[in-house]
């Protein structure tokens, strides 16, 4: 038929249908008017990483042991960790500096996957706009630390699983400790020959990277 024809009228019918249905059907008007109403964030959504702590004090309860696994797994290298030292200069298992540059972070979750201590997790907060382009987006340890309760709030399912896993791990460690104690007691009873001393298994230390402070 002619150029103006059936197809065009059909198309106009579709747009007319959309026009009218947008007034009374929700799926024809899916817009969320942002500042007034906010889309619900589902609990699996991820954004930028944060650090978890147990208990009340952020620093004491910090789960992170500064093993730098996440620092090495980070593809854009936005994590920066310096280990803490005690007065004698001996390294202790917690970070003194733990920075994440969220302007570089690509939200890939690889740090979460490698962390053996369940210490780093993905946040779902998205209102992160900042006046300072550089330092404002560089989050330090204090800004990153968030309590376990917050984790339960944003990712309930995942948090429960994590807690279960940690409890199981702790129970296992407890059982091992008990077994070790029992063995030690038995060994003490049996009086092993001096010199044959069993050392407790030590965790292999990850190789250190040199860095300037």
């Amino acid at each position, binding site marked *: *038929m*002619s*150029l*103006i*024809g*059936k*197809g*065009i009228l*059909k*198309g106009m*019918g*579709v*747009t007319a249908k*959309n026009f009218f249905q947008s007034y009374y059907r929700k799926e024809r008007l*899916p817009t969320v008017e942002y500042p007034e109403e906010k889309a619900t964030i*589902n609990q*699996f*959504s*991820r954004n930028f990483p944060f650090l978890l702590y147990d208990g009340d004090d952020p620093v004491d309860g910090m789960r992170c042991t500064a093993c730098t696994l996440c620092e090495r*797994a*980070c*593809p854009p290298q936005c994590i920066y960790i310096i280990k803490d030292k005690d007065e004698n200069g001996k390294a202790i298992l917690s970070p003194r500096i733990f920075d994440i540059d969220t302007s570089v972070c*690509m*939200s*890939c*979750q*690889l740090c979460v*996957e490698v962390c053996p201590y369940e210490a780093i997790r*993905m946040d779902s907060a998205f209102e992160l706009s900042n006046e300072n382009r550089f330092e404002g987006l560089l989050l330090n340890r204090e800004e990153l630390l968030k309590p376990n309760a917050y984790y339960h709030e944003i990712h309930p*399912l995942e948090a429960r699983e994590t807690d279960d896993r940690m409890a199981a791990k702790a129970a296992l460690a407890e059982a091992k400790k008990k077994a070790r104690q029992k063995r030690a007691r038995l060994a003490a009873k049996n009086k092993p020959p001096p010199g044959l001393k069993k050392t407790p298994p030590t965790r292999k230390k990850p190789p250190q990277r040199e860095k300037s402070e």
Partner: protein
Amino acid sequence: MSPVQTMPPRSYHIGKDDLGADILEVAMGPHHPSTHGVFRMDLKLDGETVVDLKPVFGYLHRNHEKIAEDITYPMSMPFTDRLDYLCGMTNNWAYALSAEKLIEIKVPERAEYIRVIVAELTRLVNHCLLIGFFVNDLGALGTPLLYALREREKILDLFEVLSGARMMVNYIRFGGVRCDPPDGWLKECQRIVDAFPAFLDEYETLLTENEIIIARAQNVGVVTREEAINFSLTGPMLRASGVNYDIRKVDRYGIYDRFDFKVPIGGHGDCYDRFMVRMLEMRQSVKILKQAIRDLPEGEIMGKAPKIFRPAPGEAYGRIEAPKGELGFYLISDGTPIPYRFKVRPPSFVNLTALRHMCLGHKVADAVIILGSIDIVLGEVDR
């Protein structure tokens, strides 16, 4: 045996046309509404007719390959999301497939099914978005595009629940997928897939019979069967030219041999065929999705992948049928955890080879829709 010369002659005597009028040189892009990103076409126009065209790219070049040759194999996975940023899932899969060729890893059944589901969902996302942009290039004021975005949103929500992110999914791992779909996800997926054909019907009523679209898109940017093969075109572009070559059927990678689906073939190789082939492919994707969701078995989602991925020296080329065409990853290992060579074979980059050939002799407006029908994403073209 003389070399087959299908390329049009290279050098035009540019300067004056038959009437002695000047040839107009227009740099279309990189800031142009319909070059789909930062792409540039240097056009030479005689009136409105394109007499020469030079594609210029590299504005989004991030040297993805160089970065990947500095980091370990698994660390490259999130970077692949950023190649074709509309289809993160298929990029992941293509990379995982190549890496799985380097080290033989058995992927569990369930993971294979989930991969098929997410890949076909990605195809839906890509095709309906592409058609939206294509009609936008034709001059429709965004209406089909916004309908496409409306539907895409639902699938992106699915991805967000599954992987945590909407576009930069980083979901597929060597030997499986990162996590199991949470409770209710499958049901929601089923619901969206079941509702999708209704949207497609509406979309087809809006577009396929429209006389203006037919007049604009038919017989524009024709690539014949032989030229299409010669230009190494892949994906819907190739099939629109009448070549029955779908890597899902040819390679049968993953578990595609278990699904009953057909490959739509076009007869003319013009813009309208490319548009229609994508339209029909979406219906086939829905068909695959329904089967995959129905048959999804219980079980593991990760195979026995080594903790540190250190393949033996060797090389592997893995390719999948990404929504835009053949997406290949060519990996060379030298025995270290870091790839020695990491090469991406992006479909839209190679499909652009035919752009000049398709555009010559057409009008400016046609050059725009031909570019739209190629379906480029500059993240992938420039890497």
